[in-house]
């Protein structure tokens, strides 16, 4: 059975190779090939899943070793896959949502002459992402890690003729690279500490080494996670990443890639469990980000940017949960999955709206669209309810558990974290309601002459419907006698947290803050008409519009500083390093010019020099003999 694992990765990889090298002759069939292979990968995943369900919880993990990849001295990296429950969850999410989004893209990218390449990139992404979650050692994971980075780079910058897109792509890749440095350093640390970096041995041996090293490893892993999952302080790229086509935002920057950080931390749970300080850092990052993202999300008028902010904050939740240790891992993953459903759905909805409004993204130009695109409205609405955690929908279950776990951390930080999580929930409710109201309700703020809103084609609506269904029922399904938790337990070792508040108290609190947030939003955007141009807004609003000045900070400190540094270095290289050399050359030239004077060309002066030389020689010989 385990020989099928490679097939998971191979199918989309083959697709990518075909589509990218195939050339024009594949232009007409390209998108079908891509979709087919994605679906094929999903089918394989399903088969494996079924097989896995058949086994007992103990030996569900599969392992496939292809060949020894880099054997140098004690350094052995293998090309080997490992499929346990955690990986399986991701594989299903990736291939499932991935396939849906492939289908969606068929419609969405219909009029793009480079559609073949788009599907090639999508397949490449699937392959890399699957490699990431299937790798059985950190180095191979690193390959997938950078692979998805590349795919995201290519897809964000897919409309390269737009300078903004190209810049965004570059930014995303660079920021991710910063994270990758963290990952590579972590791997090096593992190698020097354990002599290997395969999951099994490393995670087994965490007990045997000092906490300091583990903390270091943990922090480096956290840095990596921050880069990939757009957590503070490396979150700045996610907003710009919305330059890419909407399906990309849905697949990569909402459902799958950005959650890789959560996967990494959960996968390395053993390390974090043994390094409380690192865990604390994780928690803090998560808490900060979930608020940060939420606040940013409130201020954006660009529908996709608003959703991006929300993504950031939701992943903040996951990271927070993952940082809580065994009491949180399962919930982190669970929220990850549900979020995958509803956020992908929301993005696809947004895409469908843009599709209907000829690529207008400013929500202040929307309004009252519910009548024009009912399907989109309904699916989006369901996604909305899911994300704000409306009781009964999937978001409710997963998020509620996380908040509970946050309180369960215990002590003051327990209260702080729980409070933060609650606050986040409130803000989430606020900005999502805002999006909802500005887009689908209120009066038209668009010019009927120019734009003719219309429902999207089947290829687009069907995936939206499926995702909507998922986002409604997934949570409930998972929570039936903790199916999800017990499914993951062999990998992530679950234990019940003891919250100071009772479960019901937490739930009620959640619902209350939810209502407060939504109501507030309704007061501001539902009751009175929304101005078509953004008001100046309060200081916080303006800051939030600029991603809380994070970009400005980067620009001033890193970009400017870097430019100055390089410019000075270029100058120094020319004037100092090279100058030294040329200076020597110049002095030599001058010296030779002086000596040239001796060459008068008169035979007799040469003769004088000869005689002088002879005299010197004679004198030397005499001195040698010691006169």
């Amino acid at each position, binding site marked *: 059975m*385990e020989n099928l694992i490679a097939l998971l990765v191979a199918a989309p990889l083959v697709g990518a190779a075909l589509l990218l090298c195939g050339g024009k002759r594949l232009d007409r069939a390209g998108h079908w090939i891509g979709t087919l292979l994605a679906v094929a990968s999903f089918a394989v995943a399903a088969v494996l899943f079924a097989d896995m369900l058949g086994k007992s919880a103990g030996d569900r993990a*599969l*392992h*496939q*070793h292809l*060949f*020894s*990849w*880099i*054997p*140098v*001295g*004690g*350094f*052995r*990296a*293998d*090309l*080997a896959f490992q499929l346990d429950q955690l990986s399986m969850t991701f594989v299903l999410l990736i291939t499932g949502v991935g396939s849906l989004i492939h289908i969606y893209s068929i419609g969405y990218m219909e009029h793009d002459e480079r559609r073949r390449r788009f599907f090639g990139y999508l397949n490449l992404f699937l392959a890399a992402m699957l490699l990431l979650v299937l790798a*059985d050692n950190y180095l191979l994971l*690193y*390959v997938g890690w*950078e*692979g998805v980075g*590349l795919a995201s*780079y290519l897809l964000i910058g897919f409309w*390269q*003729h737009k*300078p903004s897109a*190209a810049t965004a792509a*570059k930014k995303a*890749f*660079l920021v991710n*690279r910063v994270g990758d*440095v963290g990952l*590579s350093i972590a*791997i*090096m*640390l593992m*190698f*020097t500490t*354990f*002599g*290997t970096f*395969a999951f*099994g*041995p490393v995670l*087994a041996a965490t007990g*045997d*080494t*000092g906490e300091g*090293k583990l903390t270091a490893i943990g922090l480096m892993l956290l840095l990596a996670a921050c880069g990939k999952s757009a957590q503070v302080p490396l979150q700045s790229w996610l907003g710009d990443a919305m330059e890419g086509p909407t399906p990309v935002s849905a697949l990569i920057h909402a459902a799958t890639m950005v959650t890789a950080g959560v996967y990494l931390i959960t996968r390395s749970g053993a390390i974090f469990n043994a390094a409380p300080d690192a865990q604390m850092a994780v928690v803090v990052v998560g808490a900060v980000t979930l608020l940060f993202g939420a606040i940013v999300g409130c201020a954006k008028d660009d529908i996709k940017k608003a959703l991006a902010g929300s993504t950031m904050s939701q992943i903040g939740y996951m990271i927070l949960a993952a940082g809580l240790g065994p009491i949180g891992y399962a919930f982190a993953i669970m929220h990850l999955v549900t979020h995958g459903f509803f956020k992908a759905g929301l993005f696809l909805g947004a895409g469908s709206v843009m599709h209907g409004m000829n690529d207008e993204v400013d929500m202040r130009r929307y309004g009252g669209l519910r009548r024009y695109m009912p399907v989109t409205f309904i699916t989006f609405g369901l996604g909305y309810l899911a994300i704000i955690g409306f009781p009964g929908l999937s978001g409710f279950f997963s998020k509620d558990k996380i908040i509970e776990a946050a309180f369960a951390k215990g002590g003051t930080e327990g209260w702080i974290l729980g409070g933060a999580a609650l606050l986040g929930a409130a803000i989430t409710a606020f900005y999502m309601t805002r999006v909802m109201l500005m887009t689908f309700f209120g009066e038209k703020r668009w010019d009927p002459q120019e734009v003719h809103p219309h429902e999207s084609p089947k290829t687009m609506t069907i995936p939206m419907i499926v995702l909507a269904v998922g986002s409604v029922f997934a949570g409930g399904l998972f929570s039936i006698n903790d199916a999800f938790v017990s499914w993951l337990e062999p990998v992530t070792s679950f234990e019940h947290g003891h919250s100071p508040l009772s479960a019901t108290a937490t739930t009620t609190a959640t619902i209350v803050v939810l209502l407060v947030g939504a109501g507030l939003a309704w007061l501001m955007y539902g009751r009175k008409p929304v101005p078509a141009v953004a008001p100046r807004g309060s200081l916080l609003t303006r800051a939030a519009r600029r991603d809380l000045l994070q970009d400005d900070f980067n620009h001033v400190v890193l970009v400017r500083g870097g430019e100055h*540094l*390089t410019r000075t*270095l*270029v100058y120094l*290289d020319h004037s100092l*390093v*090279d100058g030294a050399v040329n200076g020597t*050359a110049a002095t030599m030239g001058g010296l030779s010019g002086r000596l040239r004077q001796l060459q008068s060309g008169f035979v007799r002066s040469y003769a004088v020099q000869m005689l002088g030389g002879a005299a010197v020689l004679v004198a030397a010989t005499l001195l040698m003999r010691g006169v």
Partner: protein
Amino acid sequence: MSFPLLTATAVVPAVGAVATAALPAAKRTAAKWVALSFSLATFVLALVIAIRFTPGAKGPFQLTESHAWIADFGVRYELGVDGIAVALIALTALLIPFVILAGWHDADPLEETRPNRRWRPTQGFFALILAVEAMVVISFEATDVFLFYLFFEAMLIPMYFLIGGFGDGAGEHGEEQAATQRSYAAVKFLLYNLAGGLIMLAAVIGLYAATADQLGAGTFSLPQIVEARAAGHLHLGAGTERLLFLGFFFAFAVKAPLWPLHTWLPNAMGESTSPVAVLITAVVDKVGTFAMLRFCIQLFPEASKWATPVILILALISVLYGALLAVGQRDIKRLIAYASISHFGFIILGIFAMTSQGQGGATLYMVNHGISTAALMLVAGFLISRRGSRLIADYGGVQKVAPVLAGTFLIGGLATLSLPGLAPFVSEFLVLVGTFSRYPVIGIIASAAIVLAALYVLVLYQRTMTGPVKAEVRKMPDLRVRELVVVAPLIALLLFLGVYPKPLTDLVNPAVEHTLSVVDKQDPKPDVHVDATTGGSRPGHATHGDDAEAAK
């Protein structure tokens, strides 16, 4: 002694050079084909070497040939290859055909020049390339210090003419100034390397004197000296050994540009045609790093240990410095040149980290960097030849008019920033791990270059390939068949070695082990000992075990 394979491998290109040069002016195309066929023949021979070579075998060198040459000075014509040499010879023999193909039209005389019996630039160009190949190959093979030195220096002559004689006509201010800059670059290249070479000559003579003094008969033979030192017959005093080491190292540091001796490289690569630039950075400079590994460390282990800290610092500086300057360049080729400086920093870092990962990685790095830079530089050359300018600012939106060119350029770039899955990643990571395991701080600082590399590559790609299409590039044709033939195999190789570098590592490991045994350094042991075989105690572990055996 059977058929002298190594000699043949060096002789074939030499003969080819003569044959090419001998062709009359009218036979220009013929000259190209002759050169190409000879380079291919050399490649075949290199493959034969790689096959005949048995990695695990006893003794440091194989396929050895040894004949007395200058008996009075103990100079012998001594050839022999270890895994590292085999890898690099294969690289050289592999790259030259591509270089020749890529430079197919670079040396055609201008239309207005009247055909003239004596004026044969094309023949000269290809003959010089082949001559360089011959010399490089033999200096990879030489195990006699003097023999090595001879060709190490002789290489400069054809390189000088290649750099000074042929330009890409894409200068910033017209051809006249380009010519002057070219000759400036050529002279700079020559002087730098001559300076290094002369100092090395002094050291070589010193070595001879030392051996003659202590072994009775002076010798230049590397194996003999290593043996004598191991057996305790040869004790260079610390002072002498350090001086000799510095003499050797200086020459190699110039050749493999190590900060602050690097300034000749950007000029040389910037002014010469891109095939020649590839020749410089991918082939000739490798001799420097290779020689550090083979001669510096093996002849003077103690001194190497003594000098390691300083060298590591310098290497670290060139890693970061080269990357930063690459970011600051306005000229595509100079950018690539500075990138190469950064990569050479990595190579030297790996060599002197004195761990099997470091040195193995460094050797892989030499090969991979050769291929990746060749890919990037050659595509850049195609780009430049289309637009007639080297300035990044003159491009924009090429991706839209020439997607294949852009794609190959991107892949070359990604290889340069050592993206996982492409060959350079393996080597770079190995170097970093190797360095880190002994010098964690240096390792961490060096990994900052990962980000910088991404920065300069992506900035280059963004400025040239993306954005709105510039008027000058609107008519730009996509890659032609010849150019595709040049680039495609390189890219394929990059992918293959990225996914399955095992053949290369199997080739290199024993040689590295031997080098380390000469220096007698062991890899640092991990604090916790877990069974290092991946997969732990999971199913599939067993299978892994067997195929590890099978690989041996």
